[in-house]
């Protein structure tokens, strides 16, 4: 590990050693993507609550579906980025890949928490149970444990290069584990509804509901990417600051 490479990644040149440089790179910029994401989420919520018909059998409880499914897709997106960036890091040893994995891991945990909170809230009135040990519920729960473990591991290693290698190894092994957990829980019976939209023939959802779901999908994905970007910028600023601090300590 070397503090020099962190300085380079932050774009600091050796001739300009002081703080304003780091600030100009990562400083207060208007985060248009985050604003757009929040606006999209607002539109999606308004549409889901006021402009989408209430489902005949499940009543208003069904509306949680839009949040639940979209958050799940975003969580998988974020965790996919973690796994991919873990491979890229071990391959290219690029600190940007490690920072992206770190950022996506944290955002992924947030979305998984949303999935695991909205799921029981929906399950209680419809299935009559907060939780069942069904294949997809169990898989999501263990994804949550793995992601939490991943973030704890990151927090427990002081050396930056070692932290990057350790977390990349864990990211890849966790990706290998997913099929096995899926296979183990697949032996159980499932209460969870089968895919409604992504299936070979036409989606079995009325058009208005399908549009709402797609709007939510889009809004959630934009929010997920905006949060990862925000977290990534923080990681860049933090590492630049550490570089400056260690530079100051050396003198």
């Amino acid at each position, binding site marked *: 590990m070397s503090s020099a490479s962190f300085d380079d990644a932050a774009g600091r040149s050796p001739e300009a050693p002081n703080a304003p440089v780091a600030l100009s790179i990562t400083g207060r910029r208007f985060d248009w993507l985050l604003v757009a994401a929040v606006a999209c989420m607002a539109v999606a919520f308004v549409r889901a609550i006021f402009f989408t018909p209430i489902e005949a059998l499940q009543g208003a409880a069904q509306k949680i579906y839009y949040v639940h499914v979209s958050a799940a897709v975003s969580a998988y997106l974020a965790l996919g980025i973690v796994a991919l960036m873990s491979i890229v890091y071990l391959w290219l040893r690029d600190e940007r890949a490690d920072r992206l994995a770190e950022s996506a891991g944290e955002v992924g945990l947030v979305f998984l928490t949303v999935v695991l909170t909205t799921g029981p809230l929906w399950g209680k009135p419809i299935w009559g149970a907060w939780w069942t040990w069904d294949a997809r519920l169990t898989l999501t729960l263990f994804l949550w444990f793995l992601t939490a473990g991943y973030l704890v591991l990151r927090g*427990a290693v002081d050396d930056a290069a070692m932290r990057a290698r350790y977390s990349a*190894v864990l990211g*890849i092994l966790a990706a*290998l584990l997913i099929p096995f957990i899926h296979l183990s829980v697949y032996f159980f019976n499932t209460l969870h509804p089968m895919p409604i939209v992504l299936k070979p023939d036409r989606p079995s959802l009325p058009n208005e509901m399908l549009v709402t779901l797609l709007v939510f999908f889009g809004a959630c994905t934009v929010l997920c990417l905006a949060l990862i970007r925000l977290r990534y910028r923080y990681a860049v600023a933090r590492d630049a600051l550490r570089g400056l601090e260690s530079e100051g300590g050396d003198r």
Partner: protein
Amino acid sequence: MRPTLLSSTWVIARKDLAIEFRTRTAFLAVLVFAVLGVAVFYFAWDATAVAALDLAPGVLWVIFTFSGLLSLQRSFGVEQAERAMDGLLLSPIDREAIFLGKALANLLFVAGIQLVTIPAVALLYNLSLGRPLLILFGVALLAAVGLVAIGTLFSAMASNTRLAELLLPMLSLPFFVPVVYGAAQATSTLLAGRPSQEAWPFLKLLIAFDLVFLVACTLAFPYTLEE
């Protein structure tokens, strides 16, 4: 001439087993922990309401998982003292061989624990281990390979972190789920006296897990070392 992968694996395993054999503390401690756990579990259920046959597989595999974690903790912990790890890394052997040697020593350690615990469970829970005993040891060995592969790698990682004792179980337990599931289901099938073909899908799960993670952890291990 560089020693082959197999011979250097054996050298490392023999070193760890020699340390264990001469001190004997860890094996006895883990063994007592395992049997104690089996006994304590018995009080957690109403023995008149739940049949021992239904309890035994779960107890057995929970105990194996936790006693395995206890023994794996030490695997790289012993190399921390006087920076013995640096000596290992300087020796002219492949880093994969260090991992495989450590894993082999851990496997023999865990297998030794199982060899005593399985009869102890049979004794304390009044199970008749007749014909399925041999297959049961086979299941235990298959499961131990998976546990040890994962545990050895994470032990190497956790020993270098600030949360060593806490991190190993936190990282390992999610990975143990398919192993514990497959092994416990196979065990309960065998103990219930059902035909051993019914245990075959679970054995396939264990074999696949062992193959994938033994290879993956061996390849990943060099990345966890100082470079």
